[in-house]
């Protein structure tokens, strides 16, 4: 005979949002979220607006912003998509630290005040939405695609790569273009002509790939004053990166390569040859 075991679920659990964890206090807690507001048509300057948001322990800052938009102020504008730290859309300054809004939790800011601002060092289009044009141009300028020495025909089949060859570039391929590193970088903030952490990390990702022989094609960018030499190893970019890309390492190991290039040894020492 089969004994049926039923879990004890409160009769009103489906409607009551506070029944989430056994240790959670049944009273709903509120957090003050202060958002930067700016509308180019009506505001001369950005201003701040504070909202009181009821929250559960499992809510991210993004969910807090979504609560504001859904229930309190539909005009608040912000980018978001995946809710799981893979699309790179929801980057914000959260209490002065560049983070993905979906990757930061409201419970960690309670009972203090939470201030949400758009990513530093970028022009503001509206509210929490920034103009990404500069970054996108820089990304394109580093030629973020494989440049082989001799293009292979399809009939040659799949290219092969050992695990060690993949290790050489794998971490740098994890970049989700969220631009938190640009918000973190004071050199970019002081002079936006610096190519920047993510673009240079991706430049390195391709140069380090065994299938790519494009160092020469990217050298003008890498070797420029605004290329790897614009970095003074503050290292905050690596600290804020949500995917462990380590742009500081990508940039600074290329100072060696750039120097070798400068003295004319770089391309001689290249084991894979050059696609020039």
């Amino acid at each position: 005979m089969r004994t049926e075991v039923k879990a004890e679920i409160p009769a009103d659990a489906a409607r009551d949002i506070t029944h989430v964890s056994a240790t959670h206090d049944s009273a709903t807690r509120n957090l003050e979220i202060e958002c930067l507001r700016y509308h180019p048509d009506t505001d001369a300057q950005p201003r701040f607006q504070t909202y009181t948001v009821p929250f559960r322990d499992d809510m991210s800052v993004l969910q807090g912003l979504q609560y504001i938009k859904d229930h309190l102020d539909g005009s608040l504008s912000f980018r978001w998509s995946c809710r799981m730290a893979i699309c790179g859309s929801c980057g914000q300054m959260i209490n002065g630290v560049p983070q993905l809004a979906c990757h930061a939790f409201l419970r960690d800011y309670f009972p203090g005040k939470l201030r949400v601002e758009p990513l530093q060092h970028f022009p503001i289009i509206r509210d929490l939405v920034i103009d990404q044009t500069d970054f996108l141009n820089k990304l394109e300028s580093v030629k973020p695609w494989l440049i082989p020495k001799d293009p292979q025909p399809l009939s040659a089949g799949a290219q092969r790569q050992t695990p060690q060859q993949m290790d050489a570039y794998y971490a740098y391929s994890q970049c989700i273009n969220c631009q938190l590193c640009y918000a973190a970088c004071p050199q970019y903030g002081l002079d936006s002509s610096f190519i920047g952490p993510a673009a240079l990390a991706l430049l390195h990702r391709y140069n380090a790939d065994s299938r790519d022989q494009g160092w020469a094609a990217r050298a003008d960018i890498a070797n420029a004053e605004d290329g790897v030499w614009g970095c003074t190893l503050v290292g905050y970019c690596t600290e804020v990166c949500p995917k462990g890309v380590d742009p500081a390492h990508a940039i600074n190991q290329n100072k060696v390569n750039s120097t070798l290039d400068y003295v004319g040894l770089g391309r001689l020492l290249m084991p894979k040859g050059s696609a020039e």
Partner: protein
Amino acid sequence: MTGWWRKNPWFVRYMVREGSALFLAAYALMLLAGLACLVHGEAAFNAWRAALATPWSVGLHLAAVVIVAYHSITWFQVMPKTAPRLPFDPRRITWAGWAATIAVSVMVVALVAWAR
């Protein structure tokens, strides 16, 4: 960007690290002054040595030791970031840096003590 470095502890530590270069430069100039005094004869050199023994000078030297030590600590911490992909743990570079520093420091102190 005004006061950008004051807003985040990470940037404060970065600016202290970079600021240590000023103390290092001042020390180098002081040593150069000593060399110039040496060239000018015993009286000048003794005057330089006497100036070094004043409380102000000792105080500045102590501050310089502390801040340059901080520079060394942070230098060894970031050294792995300047190296290409290594077949070993990057922290070995940091430890090797410290080992070399301690070894050389011990040798220099021993040499000075022996020469006295």
